[in-house]
């Protein structure tokens, strides 16, 4: 666990990313988001599909050019770097992807997939050194080094995900964006990968941005958690605090929606079910994006976007009525 005294590794200020979707319309995937990540910590990022969490991860690594805002890595704004400076800094910032099937080039052997990282940055002097380094990386992630000459499709999902981790580690990064690294894996394999990530963090002092929609896993792995909704950061807090005393009504609904693997669980019975669907990010609601589904919504919510305010030390929420009790739930199935 990182202590809060650790220095800031990444600072994100007012980051926005728009996508043009034709007919002159734009999709606000990320809308004026600010946060920071301390060295050695894991910041979890949760939200439902289309909330912009993956876009944040990709824009953070400059895989997408931002539409506005800045990202400072160790104090340097990465969007102002030249191509060669950017290439150098890419060694420090890596990514692990969601789909263990799509994230490895099917035409290359594992040796070449991991070796590519070494080639690009000239980290191996000759073939023998490259091979030795790949073997070392495979062992680091718990894979059999003898399988280096095999192709990705011969491995299981969990094994492929570990190959992806080995590739990211090949350049000795400081920071890794984990973009839903376990959501495509089977339950029994998820814990393997999560434990591996935790172990690597401890050994190598890594900093993670852990993006996921599985709230229980995010709670388990993260020091702090950020909740996104429709391109906006709506709540950010220490993970225990967020799960025990969520302030934003969306966070509360999200937490209560997770089915708990215990048939006798009492929290299960008191589930908060929010009505309706996610609005379109092309034409988001005015004011607070959550107001169309929010049980607390009042007039002011439609007029003003509530700013992200630090309600308690380290606990931020963007809601006009943060922490207010939710009204009693009525059945969502129409009564008959």
């Amino acid at each position, binding site marked *: 666990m990182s202590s809060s005294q650790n220095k800031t590794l990444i600072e994100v200020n007012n980051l926005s990313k728009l996508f043009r979707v034709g007919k002159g319309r734009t999709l606000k995937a990320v809308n004026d988001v600010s946060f920071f990540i301390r060295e050695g910590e894991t910041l979890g990022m949760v939200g*439902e*599909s289309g909330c912009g969490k993956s876009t944040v991860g990709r824009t953070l690594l400059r895989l997408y050019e931002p539409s506005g805002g800045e990202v400072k890595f160790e104090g340097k704004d990465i969007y102002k770097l030249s191509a060669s400076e950017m290439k150098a800094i890419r060694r420090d910032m890596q990514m692990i992807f969601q789909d263990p099937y799509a994230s490895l080039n099917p035409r290359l052997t594992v040796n070449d997939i991991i070796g590519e990282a070494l080639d690009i940055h000239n980290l191996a002097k000759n073939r023998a050194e490259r091979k030795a380094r790949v073997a070392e990386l495979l062992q680091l992630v718990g894979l059999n080094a003898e399988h280096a000459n095999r192709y990705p499709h011969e491995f*299981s*999902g*969990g*094994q492929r995900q570990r190959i992806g981790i080995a590739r990211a580690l090949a350049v000795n990064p400081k920071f890794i964006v984990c973009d839903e690294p376990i959501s495509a894996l*089977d*339950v*029994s*394999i*998820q*814990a*393997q990968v*999560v*434990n591996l990530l935790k172990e690597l963090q401890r050994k190598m002092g890594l900093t993670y941005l852990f993006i996921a*929609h599985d*709230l*229980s*896993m995010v*709670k*388990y792995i993260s020091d702090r958690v950020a909740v996104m909704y429709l391109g906006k950061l709506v709540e950010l807090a220490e*993970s*225990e605090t967020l*799960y025990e005393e969520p302030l934003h009504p969306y966070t509360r*609904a*999200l*937490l*209560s*929606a*997770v*089915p*708990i*693997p*215990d*048939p*006798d*669980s009492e*929290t*299960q*019975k008191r*589930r908060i*079910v*929010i*009505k309706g*669907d*996610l609005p379109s990010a092309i034409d988001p609601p005015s004011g607070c994006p959550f107001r169309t589904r929010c049980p607390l919504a009042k007039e002011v919510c439609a007029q003003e976007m509530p700013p992200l305010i630090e309600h308690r030390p380290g606990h931020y929420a963007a809601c006009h009525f943060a922490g207010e009790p939710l009204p009693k739930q009525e*059945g*969502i*199935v*129409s009564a*008959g």
Partner: protein
Amino acid sequence: MKSDNKLRNSSKGQNAQPLLEVEDLHVSFDVRGGEVQAVRGVNMVINKGEVVGIVGESGCGKSVTAQTLMRLIPSPPSRVKKGSIRFAGEDVLKKSEKEMQQLRGGRMGMIFQDPMTSLNPTMTVGRQITENLIRHRNMSMKEAHKRGVEMLNLVGIPLAETRMKQYPHEFSGGMRQRVMIAIALACDPELLIADEPTTALDVTIQAQILEVMKELRSRLNTSIMLITHDLGIVADVCDKVIVMYAGQVAETGTVHEIFTNPKHPYTQGLLESIPRLDDDKSQPLVPIPGTPPDLIKPPTGCAFAARCKYTMDICTRVDPGLFECSSTQSARCWLNHEMAKEVHA
């Protein structure tokens, strides 16, 4: 929620009538380099009015079993090698394709994982509901329409009259899955097979669908076979659980038994490897090491032996078969043998 509990208890009662009985089912796929034995001797019983959860990882045979029940599995490459499936006393495997069409959508309803592709995009939602009713229930257009509106209301779709005239693309993912449920339930099926019905949906939408399913369970007396990999969902809605591993039933029991007193190390492993939202995180996750066996050549002995933390000498040699642990619970594990209890006491 009281009625909910009552229902769970009643289904455990003695006079439960079996609706679906699967006996010693073996299904294989022909692939390059051999035969994948996807289902290897599955037995299961679903009683009337019961909600049975089938859990297991990808490749454990849960979806293949369900698809075989409805005879929806393409053959070749798959073939049923052995076993019988009895639905309301009739042998499903002996039916002609025409008789199966009567059964599917009529007495057997189904919901699939992907609500985006399981509706026909060129037909209005109303037509997709009424078509089934006209075919299976011999209803007139008018009756069918009335019933369709009723069903959409039942699954919580507002403005049902208007919605009947709309096309699937005008519905969101969660709404489409509700439509799928409405279609599946319109003909009052005796059995509803739901294959990962909420996996493609977001948690808040999943919560809505689960509420719909729970509500419907208490209102209609439909048996539900719910296939999922999410233990939370099972705990939430099921009466009985079947845990599958490597094409076999690893353990079966009531929800309570499976979650509080699992008798198979795989079930225990699954429960230990998922973090719980209501736990504090100091408890480390215990992953199950390794990967499931390749079913081109399934291991002799227990399929889980290579990943188990209690593996004994016998496990690698002889398949344990199911040990009955109570009248409702049984587990495919040698640890339940008397001698194992003595040796490890």
